């Protein structure tokens, strides 16, 4: 199996030789088009994993490869979304979504010439996340959930091969969160980009992912791996079925074990 993202025995240390070790001996592979979720307690280096894969932070040891070539700087093919939607308040929602096209090649060169097409693409994307017709609004006129939808659109507008999500739904209310799970699943089923989702929410991980990795707390290590063989598309009702709940509990046990170890 060709691996789209590959980490080989990676350490990550912040703040020089005496700094904190955020990640130790991490090895993982993500196939092209796979949906991977990473769960773990707070401070387990999940966000460090994001920085490594996108090339924003070099590993202290080991190697990181994305799309077949070693990462030695920002990868330029990744879309990112975070817990905080961080929209730019002086731009309309549509201009916020178009921001990546103003930066990333080859879109950047043609940005002005293809303004109309780009806007149509952004509008279409907005419609798929349930924000049709909101493009001309400013982000601060939208609710938190709507901003997070728009933030997803921004992460996807340049059709990245790799989508990195760092607890994107953590700040939303439960109903909005579950609705956005479905939105994300639909988008992924349609476009089949590779996703790495970092989350605290075990139901979210099981609902969305093909495979879930459990990490220990700092220094982060990968302690368990669970393939989720549930059929797609998965419905929200499915999350209450016994087999689904059993997987969630299994993951919870791993996390508990990790936290026990931390205390003792």
């Amino acid at each position, binding site marked *: 199996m060709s691996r789209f993202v590959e980490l080989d025995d990676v350490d990550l240390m912040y703040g020089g030789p005496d700094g904190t070790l955020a990640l130790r001996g991490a090895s993982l592979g993500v196939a092209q088009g796979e949906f991977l979720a990473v769960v773990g307690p707070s401070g387990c280096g999940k966000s460090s994993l994001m*920085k490594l894969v*996108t*090339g*924003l932070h070099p590993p202290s040891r080991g190697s990181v490869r994305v799309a077949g070539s070693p990462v030695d700087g*920002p*990868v*330029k093919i*990744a*879309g*990112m979304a*975070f817990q*905080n939607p*961080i929209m*730019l*308040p*002086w731009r309309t929602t549509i201009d916020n979504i178009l*921001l*990546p096209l*103003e*930066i*990333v*090649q080859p879109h950047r060169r043609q940005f002005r010439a293809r303004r109309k097409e780009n806007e149509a693409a952004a509008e279409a994307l907005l419609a798929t996340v349930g924000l049709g017709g909101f493009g001309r609004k*400013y982000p*601060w006129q939208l609710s938190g959930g709507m901003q997070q939808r728009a933030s997803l659109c*921004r*992460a996807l507008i*340049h059709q990245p091969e790799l989508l*990195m999500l760092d607890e994107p739904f953590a700040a939303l209310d439960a109903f909005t969160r579950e609705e956005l799970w479905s939105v994300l699943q639909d988008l992924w089923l349609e476009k089949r980009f590779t996703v790495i989702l970092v989350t605290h929410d075990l139901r979210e991980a099981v609902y969305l992912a093909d495979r879930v990795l459990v990490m220990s707390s700092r220094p982060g290590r990968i302690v368990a791996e669970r393939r989720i063989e549930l059929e797609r598309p998965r419905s929200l009702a499915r999350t209450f079925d016994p087999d689904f709940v059993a997987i969630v509990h299994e993951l919870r046990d791993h996390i508990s074990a990790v936290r026990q170890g931390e205390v003792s």
Partner: protein
Amino acid sequence: MSRTERLAPWLFTVAFFVVWEIGVRVLDIGTYILPPPSLVFEQSWVFRQALFRNSMQTLYTTLAGFGIAVVFGLALGIFIGWSKTIYNGLYPVMIGFNSVPKVAVVPVLVLWFGIGTVPAILTAFLISFFPIVVNVATGLATLEPELEDVLRALGAKKMDIMLKVGIPRSLPYFFGSLKVAITLAFVGSVVSETVAANSGVGHLMLIAQANSEVPLVFGGLLCLAVLGIVMYAVFALLEQRFTGWAFRGQDRRAA
């Protein structure tokens, strides 16, 4: 804003002069100590030409100094805000520079440029550029790291991040600092005019004081106050115009 709210500044201004007038008369304060506003206005009218000419001179040196401060402050602010290292390294130097009383620099400027317009412009510049630098630099340095990550993960260069996000984002800080800077620029030019000039409101007040024309001294003060308010209002308006998005809370309530 309601009618009363709009009228309030005018009412308070009038009340201020009324209290002043009554206070001076009731307490029987000599006009050589604190002249009543009626006398100040009367004498200001008598010397209106001199006041106007010198006010224009002061306005000119203030705006010239302020203009240089905007250009220089913006450039230096962007430079300092460009990276955390430069920010941390230069900030203490800036604080030290700003701690030097600008009036102490005027003799040096006179030594270099002689008495007159140039020291006034430079003093206005020196005193007003600091808040601009600090605000622009802070606006840039407080950029959300996640947003920087989003853009860098797309292959954005530092320049892209600055142009697309950093600079627009720090504009409210910049315009906010202009309001402070313009009033400081008046302080700078008048200080310089008082020490070493042959025109300007500061110079006029000094002459008036030497001639015991106390009402005219206060007339000069009034002129400065009016100029200060007008300039402040201009920049407050510019701020609203260009960075209205930063005041969205108020806009929404108005809508």
